[in-house]
């Protein structure tokens, strides 16, 4: 029995309004500024989020440097240290991790589901420009002495409005991505056959849509309050505490949901075998998303994080990550494994996420770590770093779809290993300090932590920066036009590898065959 068949002509006609290919490809600046092409928008997200994100990592390193000798070293002045601290924490999620994940997803997800374009392409483009404007305004608000703890009221107002704009823009991107997976899959690609990365992006996007609007609501309240005297949230510094729930577990896990999907897809392809318990993999990813639902903690601080429900969520969140790791082990056992950079990125990201969820479970237990300790920062860092590693891995793995040529494989193998070491050196000291010391989560106060461990964090930050630089160097070939770039350099299983490299404006040449399994390209090769 053939596993693929030519679709009836009615398929193209029936889905014409949503899937119609644009006629002319724009060129020059117009191709960037006015583009609704998901690949262009995704690339813009990737490049700009890395440009915003690197200074955030440097900031983290500088905090660790000051933390090694807080009594004598004054890297930051007393007046500005809290503002830099909030920029580092908020920027790490909203200027780096989330937009980077969204950027990779925006390029890859429509290709994976066989769509000719992303859903609501103009909205997707608006999401990027909105996010960029919001990010620039957020940084500007700090420059004018705004942000939480800032001394200038207009700067604080600008910070709230800018973060609101960033969140709304990212939500628009999430709607585009989730709708693409839910409504624009090609014929035969049922939801249970959806590639794991696209599935994980849909799960994450839906979770963002259900939780981040609560942050938007909170920002509306903060803005109205701050404009009229600030009676509800106390000082400017109190603003940060109100939104800390977004930056810690369980909510921070939603940023890292695509890590599981990326790992599942890449490891299956690398092992040259199908994922056997597919429903289990999809279930684990869905469960991890649900366990990251943290909107019920909006505005909460203190002891509520030691309530039984939050503890239970933190303890159970380890299981889906273990399930995907188990799946990876099964793939290695059954398949013929290749040592690719993608596999190393996937494994590193999974291990960092496992470290984060394990730290979250340990830090949730009241007897081991008090509410609002520095251990919670470590958990947040692990989720963010896992998302960054997986995203960089995604750019490497799908290099021929995102850029113009395959990435440098040797440097690509080095980067995830350095990033894994660096991430562990950043996360573990914070968790240990939270358990054995009493450093706080909501302020840059090093007196309660274990100062000696900050040396390890400095080393970890340097390693993460080196890892990102190695990854960036490995991705340089993506910028140069190549000849005979292979459509499928990895013997891929899913539809994106059917698209030419780089993909044209309408993604695929000709009509796609009706999909009859979760691995249509494996079907095709078996058929031939």
């Amino acid at each position, binding site marked *: 029995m053939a596993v693929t068949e030519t679709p009836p002509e009615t398929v193209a006609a029936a889905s014409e309004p949503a899937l119609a290919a644009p006629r002319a490809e724009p060129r020059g600046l117009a191709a960037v500024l006015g583009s609704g092409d998901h690949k262009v928008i995704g690339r813009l997200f990737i490049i700009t989020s890395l440009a915003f994100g690197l200074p955030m990592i440097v900031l983290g390193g500088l905090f660790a440097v000051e933390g090694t000798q807080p009594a004598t070293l004054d890297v930051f002045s007393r007046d500005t240290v809290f503002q830099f601290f909030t920029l580092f924490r908020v920027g790490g999620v909203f200027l780096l991790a989330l937009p980077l994940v969204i950027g990779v997803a925006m390029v890859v997800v429509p290709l994976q589901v066989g769509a000719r374009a992303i859903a609501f392409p103009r909205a997707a483009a608006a999401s990027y420009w909105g996010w960029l404007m919001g990010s620039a305004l957020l940084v500007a608000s700090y420059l004018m002495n705004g942000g939480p703890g800032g001394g200038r009221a207009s700067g604080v107002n600008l910070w709230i409005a800018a973060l609101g704009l960033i969140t709304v823009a990212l939500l628009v991107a999430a709607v585009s991505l989730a709708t693409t997976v839910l409504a624009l899959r090609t*014929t035969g690609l049922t939801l249970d056959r959806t590639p794991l990365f696209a599935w994980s992006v849909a799960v994450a996007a839906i979770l963002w*849509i259900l939780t981040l609007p609560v942050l938007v609501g909170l920002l509306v309240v903060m803005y109205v309050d701050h404009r009229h005297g600030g009676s509800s949230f106390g000082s400017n510094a109190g603003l940060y505490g109100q939104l800390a729930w977004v930056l810690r577990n369980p909510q921070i896990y939603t940023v890292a949901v695509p890590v599981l999907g990326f790992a599942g897809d890449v490891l299956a392809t690398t092992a040259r075998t199908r994922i056997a318990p597919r429903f289990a993999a999809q279930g684990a990813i869905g469960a991890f998303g649900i366990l990251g639902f943290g909107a019920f903690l909006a505005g909460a601080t203190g002891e509520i994080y030691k309530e039984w429900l939050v503890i239970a969520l933190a303890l159970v969140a380890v299981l889906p990550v273990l399930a995907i790791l188990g799946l990876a082990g099964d793939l290695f056992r059954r398949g013929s494994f290749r040592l690719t950079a993608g596999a190393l990125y996937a494994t590193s990201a999974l291990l960092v996420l496992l470290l984060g969820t394990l730290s979250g479970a340990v830090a949730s237990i009241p007897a081991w770590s008090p509410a609002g300790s520095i251990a919670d920062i470590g958990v947040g860092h692990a989720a963010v770093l896992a998302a960054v590693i997986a995203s960089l891995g995604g750019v490497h793995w799908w290099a021929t779809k995102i850029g113009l040529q395959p990435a440098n494989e040797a440097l690509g193998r080095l980067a995830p290993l350095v990033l894994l070491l660096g991430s562990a050196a950043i996360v573990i000291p914070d968790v240990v300090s939270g358990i054995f010391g009493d450093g706080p989560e909501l302020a840059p106060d090093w007196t309660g932590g274990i100062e000696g461990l900050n040396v390890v964090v400095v080393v970890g930050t340097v390693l993460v920066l080196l890892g990102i630089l190695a990854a960036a160097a490995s991705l340089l070939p993506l910028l140069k036009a190549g000849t005979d770039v292979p459509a499928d350099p990895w013997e891929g299983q899913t539809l994106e590898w059917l698209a030419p490299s780089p993909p044209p404006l309408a993604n695929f040449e000709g009509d796609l065959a009706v999909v009859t399994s979760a691995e249509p390209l494996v079907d095709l090769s078996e058929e031939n």
Partner: protein
Amino acid sequence: MADAALALPPAPQPARPRVLLVGTALVAAGAFMAIVGLVGVYISARTNALATGGTWLPAGSSIPLTPGNMAFATMLLSGVSMWWAVDAVGKNDRQMAYLALALTIFFGIAVINATSFLYSQMDLAVSSTPGVLIFAVTGAHLAMIILGLVYAAVMTFRTLGGEYHGRDREGLTAAALFWYVTIAAHAVIWLAIYVTK
């Protein structure tokens, strides 16, 4: 094997991708969560204020129930008229569809009017904690109503232009879905703020 595949009957015609409906459902879910989150903050602040032995609303301020009830009743009526519009387009009864959509938009404007009247009756300063929260919650909902009205108006014009008719009424169904969620959000606000205060 390949011959067997060629001999298969053609695949059934797939359903048209309901992109607009799915996207609207996601946006509506997000908007509903924003309102629910705001109401949660309101309830939490009120509970904390009452737990410390204080009063919630400042002296001299009150939330009269009648305008709130009128606004909610009008909102419910608009749900019926919106359902009527979708049904009329489904039956290709364009005249009834125009009438129902116009009525829905009229009801929406009436809700905005009732809420602004309620604001004038409350005598509540924005600078107080209840003032911040009540204006933020109801203001966000007013924004949702305006968004729903614009959406419904656009879909009305598209229906007038003949884009939606008979079984193909995705745009109008999407606008209706957003409107129903707006009504559900109003129900939450009505109960938490206007009734419970």
